């Protein structure tokens, strides 16, 4: 690795001050599992940083707090292991555990943060589809103050987010799960662990009071577009409908059309589109079944 300076602030304010004081060429480092590898490769994806600002010791990024009626605050600096081990997350947002629990190996999960996964902005990021399907919002703080935006607006392209220089992702805000709702995430990979999604699909559904119609459906796709995406036409085709196998099959076919994948070593575009349909269909059945059981 080529030289860079490194700062270890102890609070969010101190971190923001460090970027302000040191000026251009700075980059945050959280778990480092993407960044250090990219720096070792020479930093081709972005200009090689002049200095790093460590987020490891910022208590503001380690928040994990449930408030009745408001939902969950999930600090961007929580590691995948911390997310997976949280009883709160396991009980109320199992789809997030589905995603966080398969990021690399145990070693990776002990280092990788959920915020770093979003900020690195890989289309295949495993926590992105669950966050999208759960309609999480991202709280971002920077030199010009703070803003809160739906995660759907967070990604601009591969490796690109809305974050401006000196801005930090502080936490995700997740709405409380509705009664008779359920969410699932699954990725297709040849290996169970230590692999990158060929496609990833997250589905969140909510049934109405008598369980006969779908009040809400959210379908999010990873690794099939320049950013993680919502399959909105598929969602719209389900909402207000009875969750019949035919309706589910129609929605899955629409999700396939909404995917715009590329061909690469992990799979051809055609294979990816096929997988989107198959996985979406299976997950819709699974989520609806779970929502019925309550």
């Amino acid at each position: 690795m080529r030289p860079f300076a490194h700062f270890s602030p102890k609070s969010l304010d101190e971190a923001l001050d460090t970027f302000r004081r040191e000026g251009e060429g700075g980059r945050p480092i959280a778990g480092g599992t993407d960044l250090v590898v990219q720096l070792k490769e020479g930093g081709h994806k972005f200009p090689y940083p002049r200095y790093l600002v460590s987020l490891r010791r910022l208590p503001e990024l380690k928040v994990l707090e449930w408030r009745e009626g408001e939902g969950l605050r999930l600090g961007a600096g929580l590691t995948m292991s911390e997310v997976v081990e949280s009883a709160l997350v396991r009980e109320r947002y199992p789809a997030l555990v589905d995603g966080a629990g398969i990021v690399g190996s145990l070693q990776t999960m002990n280092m990788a943060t959920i915020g770093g996964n979003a900020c690195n902005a890989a289309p295949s990021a495993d926590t992105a589809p669950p966050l999208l399907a759960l309609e999480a919002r991202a709280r971002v703080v920077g030199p010009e103050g703070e803003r809160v935006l739906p995660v759907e607006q967070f990604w601009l392209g591969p490796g690109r987010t809305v974050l401006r220089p000196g801005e930090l992702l502080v936490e995700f805000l997740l709405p409380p799960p509705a009664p008779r709702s359920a969410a699932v995430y699954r990725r297709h990979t040849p290996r169970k662990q230590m692999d990158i999604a060929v496609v990833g699909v997250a589905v969140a559904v909510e049934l109405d009071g008598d369980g006969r119609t779908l009040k809400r459906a959210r379908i999010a796709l990873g690794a099939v577009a320049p950013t993680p995406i919502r399959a909105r036409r598929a969602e719209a085709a389900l909402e207000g409908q009875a969750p019949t196998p035919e309706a589910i099959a129609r929605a899955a076919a629409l999700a396939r059309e909404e995917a715009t994948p590329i061909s690469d070593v992990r799979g051809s575009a055609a294979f990816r589109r096929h997988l989107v349909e198959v996985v979406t269909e299976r997950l819709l059945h699974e989520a609806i079944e779970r929502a019925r059981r309550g």
Partner: protein
Amino acid sequence: MPKRLINLTVNGEAYEVAVEPWWSLLYTVREELGLTGSKEGCGTGDCGACSMLVDGRLVTSCIMLAVEADGCQVTTIEGLATDGNLHPVQQAFVEKGAVQCGYCIPGMVMAAYDLLRRNPNPTLEEVRLGLAGNLCRCTGYAKIYEAVLAAAERMRGD
């Protein structure tokens, strides 16, 4: 710029080390502290040969900056044996002949040690998942899994 002074407690011993910000924890432990048991296979977090515990968490130390571990408790493969006696996991690797060239073994042993602390009675599948971040280029997985299961049994005392 001068090097940065960091504090590490490695295998119970306190060190103050002067490091460059771009040095990995693995490089620092091997080259500055002389603890060369941990190996570098890939340098990119993929093979697990550099596995160590940092504040009780198993990490791939090749992609952790030493400055990021400032103030942490580190356990390396050198820290497992006590009073010259191998740890039961190490002993089981010897007895089961789980070692071929040996390069992956420090990382395998650390991952197995960590797994058995969290799950003293793993199934074969759980052992496989627990070691999924560790590659053996000699591909001696079957005996490695046998050794871990044998160590688990011995450590449980049944």
